[in-house]
């Protein structure tokens, strides 16, 4: 008998439907189920880790401030020598086990799937809404698809990852802070309107 799927950290607050003002360009919010695995290279093993990531996931570890997309997973740079692997939610612990086997002796591998929650915000309103709590410049001149940044939004540590030109941003926060963060997001988006899928 397998364990039941855990309740989503935002199940109590993310009521599907329209919130805030009416308008034709609302902020679109989706809550993807993700596996998240932190990979931290052992000192001096970065090149061997890069080869292993290429072999197993079909991508090179992205440079600072960037992300990479592989065969069935993505990687986001989070700090020197460390990346967050993400993939659609699969069997419990499977992505971490795959990474641990591929990177044995090359990196520390830690499953963060329960500890972090990813929120996708999308649409023309996304930059204006995020600017109400985010200090980094998300203007196309300074940021864009494939760019990522660890920062704070509304005082909550947040990994920001732009995935397309819609624009869509994946926001990954600690699950324990996902609920207050989500309340902020609804407030910040209220003047544009927020549609939760």
């Amino acid at each position: 008998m397998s364990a039941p799927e855990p309740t989503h950290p935002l199940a109590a607050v993310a009521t599907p439907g329209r919130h805030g003002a009416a308008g034709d360009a609302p902020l679109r919010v989706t809550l993807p189920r993700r596996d998240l695995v932190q990979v931290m290279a052992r000192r001096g093993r970065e090149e061997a880790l890069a080869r292993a990531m290429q072999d197993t996931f079909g991508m090179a570890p992205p440079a600072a401030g960037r992300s990479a997309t592989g065969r069935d997973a993505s990687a986001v740079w989070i700090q020197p020598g460390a990346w967050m692997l993400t993939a659609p939610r699969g069997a419990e612990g499977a992505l971490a086990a795959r990474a641990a086997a591929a990177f044995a002796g090359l990196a520390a591998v830690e499953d963060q799937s329960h500890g972090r929650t990813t929120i996708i915000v999308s649409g023309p309103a996304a930059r204006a809404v995020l600017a109400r709590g985010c200090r980094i410049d998300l203007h196309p001149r300074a940021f864009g698809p494939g760019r990522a940044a660890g920062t704070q939004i509304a005082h909550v540590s947040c990994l920001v990852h732009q995935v397309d030109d819609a624009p869509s941003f994946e926001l990954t926060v600690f699950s324990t802070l996902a609920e207050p963060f989500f309340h902020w997001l609804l407030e910040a988006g209220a003047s544009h309107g927020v549609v939760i899928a």
Partner: protein
Amino acid sequence: MLRIPCPHCGPRDEAEFSYRGDATVTRPGPEDGIEAFHGYLYERRNPRGWQVEWWQHGAGCRAFLKVLRHTVTHEIRAVATATEALEVPEA
């Protein structure tokens, strides 16, 4: 408010960093005596001018950085990683 150019993350708001003091202080050897340790723990130059200091980018890449900052004007002239050398300019 300072804007600190992190070598890993690019320019970021001071609020993402923690100030960690004079980066030129070095820990004495274990046999150097109580006076040397007293100086290491408590005595600082507190200069009016350029200082190399530690800032940790805790809300970003988490790295400890060396920052060359003017303590009067707050001008930041250079930022380096923890293992790089960063010298205080003459006068």
